């Protein structure tokens, strides 16, 4: 079960499994972001390339406006996937 919620006006929390079936739900929140935002992965168990695609598209859009996503609590499986995709090169990971 995937969930996404705004924890604050500048922080988004993800939980559960972020796969291709969850892209629409995730984009309904990420597409609304207009400023630098922290994404909290503490409760996220799993991510696929579909989830990476949403993050990357949001980062590109925010960068064009002078903002960015900052990723926190990236551990375990999520950290390993980010390492394979070299997301450390295109995101600030706290």
């Amino acid at each position, binding site marked *: 079960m995937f969930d996404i919620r705004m924890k604050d006006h500048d922080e988004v929390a993800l939980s559960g499994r972020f*796969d291709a079936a969850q892209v629409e739900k995730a984009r309904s929140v990420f597409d609304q972001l207009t400023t630098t935002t922290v994404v909290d992965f503490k409760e996220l168990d799993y991510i*696929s390339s579909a989830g990476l695609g949403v993050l990357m598209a949001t980062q590109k859009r925010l960068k064009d406006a002078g903002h960015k996503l900052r990723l926190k609590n990236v551990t375990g499986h999520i950290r390993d996937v980010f390492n394979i995709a070299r997301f450390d090169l295109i995101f600030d990971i706290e």
Partner: protein
Amino acid sequence: MEKKFKRDLRSLEKVFDFIDNFIAKQGIDHSIKNAVYLAIDELFTNMVRYHPKNRNDISLALKKEKNKVIIRLIDRDVEPFDITKSKDPNIQASLDERSPGGLGIYLTKNVVDNIQYEYRDRMSIITLTKNLGRKHV
């Protein structure tokens, strides 16, 4: 264990349940779970996306052999697409130059130990081998 799944991204939850069931029944170390999820999820998702009008279900078979897990996905009545020959994305590129395309197969290649592709009778047959007993993504 073998099962057919409807060609729909909403089938992914059932695919994950099937994998959980297999791992539990075989008594396999739970740490392999996300790597198996990822390898199968990426290929299944590609099969759904690239042949959306195909009415055939997608077959998934899981088997434990000694110290490895053998995963087989079969997609029927499709055009060939040899994933072992797909070009890797440039993951060193800047954000402006990067696109999400190609990351799925690249992730799969990185979390399994062997990939074989076979095309016969208009079937794409992908066989993945995942060794047990090492660190898993």
